[in-house]
């Protein structure tokens, strides 16, 4: 009987603790949910007197929200695709090679992963300025003067998408390389060797054997890249200044920094729209999370 009573008291403590923690975790979201449907939304948590979908409609009709969303989708989508391709190739090579540089390379990846982007941002800005200058010369020599500006918005390195995409890609690469390398380590080489025996060339082997085998690993790396790049704040803050190139996080941030005339209902709707893809991706990627943190540790 004593054992039973102890058991229930421990259970009660567990439920009590979990409930308090649940409230702590969810309470901040209640405001953003309610404000997004409240016609009189304010900075403070309140029960809406009515329900409206206007704030969500406004995102796609009246204001910049849809453009920011689209801009984020394009840059982060391109980043994710690029990371999957580049890290897919690199991770495979890292897994299969026995060259002398394998171990130094892998240790370097661990060290690179701890470098804080804030500490790199100044020299990175310099690198980007230089690359932007070179790209400017190149672009001016190819396109008509009238379209230089719009071309640089796509191919520029400062206030242009190519630069932002490459920087975001580089930042997400170490983790993706690690995940994909670990994945290939667990994939038997027999299939490849069999295909090689049958005379498949390198492209056939990649297309028919490796990509299908690696799909879960590539998917995990892609999801985590998407989450990381989608939530990134520092890079778009530093490298994008034009209003029409603005990404969602910065658009949202600037809008609620304005001292007056903040449309809380609209911004709440926008914040919800912004967090949804990340939350969905996180939900799918959850089971891969442990291995990314503890990658490479035995026991």
């Amino acid at each position, binding site marked *: 009987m004593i054992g039973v009573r102890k058991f229930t008291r421990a259970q009660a403590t567990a439920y009590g603790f*979990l409930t308090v923690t649940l409230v702590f975790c969810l309470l901040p979201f209640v405001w953003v949910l309610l404000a997004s449907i409240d016609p009189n939304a304010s900075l403070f948590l309140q029960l809406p007197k009515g329900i409206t979908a206007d704030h969500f409609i406004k995102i796609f009709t009246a204001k910049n929200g849809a453009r920011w969303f689209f801009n984020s989708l394009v840059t982060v989508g391109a980043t994710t695709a690029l990371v999957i391709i580049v890290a897919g190739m690199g991770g495979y090579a890292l897994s299969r090679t026995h060259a002398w540089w394998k171990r130094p390379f892998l240790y370097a990846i661990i060290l690179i992963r701890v470098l804080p982007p804030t500490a790199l941002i100044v*020299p990175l800005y310099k690198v980007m300025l230089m690359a932007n200058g070179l790209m400017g010369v190149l672009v001016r020599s190819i396109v008509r003067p009238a379209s230089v500006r719009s071309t640089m918005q796509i191919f520029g390195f400062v206030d242009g998408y190519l630069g932002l995409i490459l920087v975001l890609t580089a930042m997400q690469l170490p983790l993706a390389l690690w995940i994909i390398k670990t994945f290939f380590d667990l994939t038997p080489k027999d299939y490849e060797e069999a295909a090689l025996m049958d005379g498949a060339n390198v492209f056939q082997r990649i297309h028919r054997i490796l990509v299908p085998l690696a799909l879960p690993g590539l998917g995990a790396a892609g999801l985590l890249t998407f989450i990381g790049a*989608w939530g990134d704040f520092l890079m778009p803050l530093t490298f994008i200044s034009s209003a029409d190139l603005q990404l969602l996080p910065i658009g949202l*941030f600037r809008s609620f920094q304005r001292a007056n005339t903040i449309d809380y209902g609209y911004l709440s709707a926008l914040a919800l729209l912004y967090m949804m893809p990340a939350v969905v991706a996180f939900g799918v990627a959850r089971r891969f999370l442990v291995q990314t943190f503890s990658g490479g540790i035995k026991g």
Partner: protein
Amino acid sequence: MFMTYEARVAWQNQILLAPAFVLVACFILIPAGAAIYISFTNDALSGFAAAHPQFVGFKNYVRLLSDDGFWNSLVVTFCFVFGSSIVGQFVLGLAAAMALSRPIAFKSVFNAALLLPNAVPEVVAGFIWISMLAGGKNSTLSRIVGLIGIAPQNWLESVPLLMIIVVNTWRGIAFAMILMTSGLSAVSPEVYESARMDGATPRQIFWRITLPLLRPTILLYMLVSTAGTIAIFGLIYTLTRGGPAGATEIIGIYIYNQSFTAYQLGYGSAVAVIMLGISVAIGALYVRILKVQV
């Protein structure tokens, strides 16, 4: 054509790895090296020094030693890391992992709720906490603590450092919980069973068995979480921008403000080099202590 199979494979591997290497080199390694170089110059974002940066030797580092802003940022960084990742996230995450390792109803609901703060982008986290912590008697936190008789206030003005610690704890419980859950699941139930047979109390079991067996996981958590917490930018920037008066200016925010608000790239880079040094030291500890196999 005359290469052996092995030579061709080795060559192929290098080609496959080349794009990743070039990207990381251009946007991470070269900037890290350039940070060291720029830290020895008086480079600036605008003005005369921007066009003609001069080599100034260790001047930036000497200035750093006597700069209150720099020391302040180190202290704030330490408090922030200690308060949120070492204490807040770890204690709550471990407790949540232990609670969820029991047979509990609605397990997936609790799990999802605890993971949600970690899944949302930093700007969204900042946005919703601005509402929670806003000034006046109508903000959510003021109303809650009003129940126990604490006066309403503008929380990000009166106790800013404590508030960003609370917000980051909120955001990071999931991370600690996920790691601790994986650590706990590796402990075999028989160990607990035999301890209970020997009459150990729950408290003894926790301190003598659970914690010691979790030690490698805890160490891993501490290192990864410390490195990650030092690197936080968006969460604090959206809430306070490092203010008021530097109260929440962790070292990364300090670098950003020195470089892009005060325009002093050379000095900002000197601070960045210190920060890189700290981070690499944590990374090296991680590799050495945990004996990472590659």
